[in-house]
């Protein structure tokens, strides 16, 4: 009886009108939203970059500020996708009943979940591009190869949007998301090479970090910022894609179960 929960996603272009809905909402609050995308990561980058950077001659063969720049793009894209998928996604599913309204039309739940992921990834893209613009303006990256950060921001967004939607599918209320941010997002920010190289960690932590998606994002981002083709790029892209696809499927199964009554 519950077999249909596990059916493979049936994707269609019908996600697009829903994506346009989210875009139209966003346009109404674009100014504070862009400020929000920028203020937090840029303050971190500049504060730590100037503050700690003056004490550190270099890190990973570059200035500390340049080291931080790549990590900052990654964690700010992670954060924007996560906030969108958790808080805004939950509001649309539960509080505002937007999904219920959409599901009464010829649109399926698969389309709705896909639109959520693509929209949260769009927010990542915007946030990544905004931070990247600041990095260019500050002259922290000179390589055209750093333009690859833009599709990378989208990929990071897809992975973290899908992971976040698993939590949204399980959440009884907003409070629940605190677990995810405290136990998943914050540790990733500290363990995955955003502020210092993973190699500085004890071996056990390095093994854990190696399995986390943000590590792979940073491993792609830092060489790109410096105009170098990332070593093992296919592996890192593969890991991020695998997180995105597996989490999309799991969240879809959970949403089908949650909304089956």
């Amino acid at each position, binding site marked *: *009886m519950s077999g*249909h929960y596990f059916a493979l996603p049936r994707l269609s272009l*019908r996600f697009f*009108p*829903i994506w*346009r*809905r989210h875009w*139209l*909402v966003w346009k*109404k609050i674009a100014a504070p939203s862009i400020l929000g995308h920028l203020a937090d990561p840029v303050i971190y980058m500049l504060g730590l970059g100037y503050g700690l950077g003056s004490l550190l001659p270099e890190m990973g063969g570059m200035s500390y500020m340049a080291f931080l720049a790549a990590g900052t793009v990654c964690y700010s894209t992670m954060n924007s996708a996560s906030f969108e998928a958790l808080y805004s996604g939950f509001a649309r599913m539960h509080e*505002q*009943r*937007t999904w*219920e*309204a*959409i*599901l*009464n*039309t*010829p*649109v*399926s739940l698969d389309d709705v979940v896909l639109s959520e992921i693509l929209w949260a990834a769009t927010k990542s893209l915007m946030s990544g591009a905004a931070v990247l613009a600041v990095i260019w303006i500050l002259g922290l990256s000179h390589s055209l190869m750093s333009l690859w950060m833009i599709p990378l921001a989208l990929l990071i967004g897809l992975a973290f949007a899908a992971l976040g939607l698993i939590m949204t599918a399980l959440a009884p209320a907003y409070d629940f998301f605190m677990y995810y941010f405290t136990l998943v997002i914050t540790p990733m920010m500290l363990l995955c090479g955003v502020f210092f190289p993973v190699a500085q960690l004890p071996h056990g932590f390095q093994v854990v970090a190696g399995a986390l998606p943000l590590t792979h994002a940073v491993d792609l981002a830092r060489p790109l910022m410096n105009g170098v083709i990332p070593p093992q790029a296919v592996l890192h892209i593969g890991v991020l894609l695998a997180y995105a696809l597996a989490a999309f499927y799991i969240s879809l199964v959970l949403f089908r179960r949650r909304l*089956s*009554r």
Partner: protein
Amino acid sequence: MNAVIKATGLQKSYDGNRVVDGLDLAIHRGECFGLLGPNGAGKTTTLRMLLGLIAPDAGTATLLDLPVPQAAREARIRVGVVPQMDNLDPDFSVAENLLVYGRYFGMHDSEIKARIPDLLEFASLTHKRDAKVPTLSGGMKRRLTLARALVNDPDVIFLDEPTTGLDPQARHLIWQRLRELTQQGKTLLLTTHFMDEAERLCHRLAVMDNGKLISEGSPRELIESNIEPQVVEVYGETAAQWAGACAAGFAHRFEVSGESAFCYVNDAQPLVAHLQTQSALRYLHRPANLEDVFLKLTGREMRE
């Protein structure tokens, strides 16, 4: 004359509780059909199965000749839904709500925009075109929800408790609009627990309780086939004692609820004559209505 909505042996259980239990239903084109029942009777679950939003455990359903849930998507292209709780987009204006909703049906913006003035007029919201949803009254939100359900010019409209929570003026306006829709030949399936609403609007009704249909027919048929034609309501502190002692002598059937006694009779004259001599009691003599039928069929106990 084939049925626009048809269900055969529909069944659904949640956690071992049978919410819908072997439901058969056939609703014809142009009909306004009312599904009545106390809270928890299975009305909303039935609607959700007929829309193809959830799969039944057993039984089959068709919507506009398409099997649901298998072909629900295709069927819903020609269906409008007014849900029980408002789910308008609070970030959008009235007109934007209609535009965005029309896109979900695959309609082009030009096509939707051409329909918006008519939809707003139908909903008496022309002057509110650019107002944000949170600034609308409850009645306006319901009318906008109704207009939104019509954006795709549907053949069938599902309405789940369309007037719950509205004041009388707002309810009357909604009723008038629903009557206009049936006059246009649209098929309406609505759930309600307002008996006056059902009696005014519906060509046919079904009373549902514990997941089963327990009676079906036109409002008049339901009254004639289920209940005595006259009701005398007796009020007063001593009404219960009076009923225990005397009611059986006058009435086929009577029920006591608090300080009221309801006497169901074929001929009210002897009872009314008797009551005129009882100075401690007040009474009201009236024809039987749908609410009497509903209470007889589903009982007077609270459902919570």
